[in-house]
């Protein structure tokens, strides 16, 4: 017969055992610790967008689609440009036709099934363009939710997707608070901006940075204090998107407005 004392004891042990995290059962390997210390890694890629310079020409989107082999006519892009128009009555109109692949060529705002909305210029209080791309978050939720380890973060901070390993479950597409991810129409796996990893790792700039005539975009190494991008981020008033989500985005914006989501 089990008495009350024994029962309580065993129950506590059982509950304690159940609460052990799986990670606690991992055998400690000093090599891991050393690797963590040795990563005197000198690179952490970051991005700077100056919204005050963007004119909405969309050259960046065009170059990105070609450089990264995203089908040109499919309505998906790795980077896109949004237009924000705030009117006198306090309303905000937002559009991004085809992700701005062909730029903004009309003052009319695309309101989807409500048609094109025309706003008389005297009604506009402010209007501006905001380029968007993957934030290469320091705490990427898209990586956490991947059940198979197909999406991951490299040592230099870029989040990549292993196309042969992705099972196409779409969790990461739901998990990204910035709606950056989509399904690649040809490869049928998750796809997103990777800061042109093939270019930056060879000392080049991303295709969108090279294509932007107005200098609205720049990419740099946040661990290098002399990098011009790092300098601006450290010394100017920059902001990030959806800071409250705790994702720690590494795409910084100059001249962001409260209307931008």
């Amino acid at each position, binding site marked *: 017969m089990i008495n009350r004392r024994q029962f309580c004891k065993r129950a506590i042990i059982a509950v304690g055992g159940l609460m052990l995290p799986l990670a606690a059962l991992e055998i400690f390997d000093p090599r891991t610790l050393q690797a963590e210390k040795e990563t005197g*890694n000198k690179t952490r890629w970051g991005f700077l967008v100056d919204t005050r310079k963007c*004119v*909405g020409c969309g050259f960046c989107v065009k170059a990105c689609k070609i450089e990264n082999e995203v089908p040109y006519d499919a309505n998906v892009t790795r980077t896109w440009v949004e237009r924000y128009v705030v009117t006198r009555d306090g309303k905000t109109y937002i559009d991004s036709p085809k992700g701005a692949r062909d730029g903004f*060529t009309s003052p009319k705002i695309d309101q989807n099934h409500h048609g094109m909305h025309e706003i008389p210029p005297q009604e506009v209080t402010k209007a501006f363009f905001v380029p968007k791309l993957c934030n290469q978050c320091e705490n990427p939720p898209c990586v956490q939710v991947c059940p198979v380890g197909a999406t991951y*973060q490299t040592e230099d901070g870029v989040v*990549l997707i292993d196309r042969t390993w992705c099972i196409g479950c779409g969790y990461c597409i739901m998990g990204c608070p910035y709606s950056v991810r989509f399904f690649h129409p040809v490869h049928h796996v998750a796809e997103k901006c990777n800061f042109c990893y093939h270019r930056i790792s060879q000392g080049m700039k991303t295709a969108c940075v090279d*294509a932007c005539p107005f200098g609205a975009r720049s990419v740099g190494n946040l661990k290098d204090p002399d990098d011009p991008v790092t300098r601006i981020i450290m010394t100017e008033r920059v902001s990030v998107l959806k800071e409250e989500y705790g994702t720690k985005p590494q795409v910084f914006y100059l001249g962001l407005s409260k209307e931008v989501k």
Partner: protein
Amino acid sequence: MKNHVLRPLYVALALVGFILFVRKLLVPVDFGIYERGYMYGWHRKSNEAEWKGVRIKYKTDKGCRDCHRDKYEEISKSGHSIISCENCHGPRYEHPKDPPGLTVDRSRGLCVRCHAHIPYMTGGRGDIPGIDPEKHYPQAECVMCHLSHNPKPMNQKREARS
């Protein structure tokens, strides 16, 4: 212990062994936890090299100047000097080896990206000389009259002026 207890145990062990064996076969050898740790670092290491190996299409202006010096200098004096050659001439790839000639985009759509007038004064867009694409010679290509390499307002093609 009696046989009827041990037999299912063997079956269970064999099953576990089989699953481990299949896992060994299917999971790539270089799949593991790397620099970013348990939470963000699980991946197949060789995938990093695969992404680094993607072919570069846009090679920037650097190579253009060597062969097309005259063009390069003409543009660098004009307002269009900020635009990369490849924005209109297309990605360079291995040109002149491959492709020998590039596909130049002479379309109206390319010009109106910036020159469709949108009167926004918050950014720079409102300051760019612009037209209303629906009213300004809607049937014509811009390059029929305007010189894209040197687009000063009155610097138009001779036949267009006369």
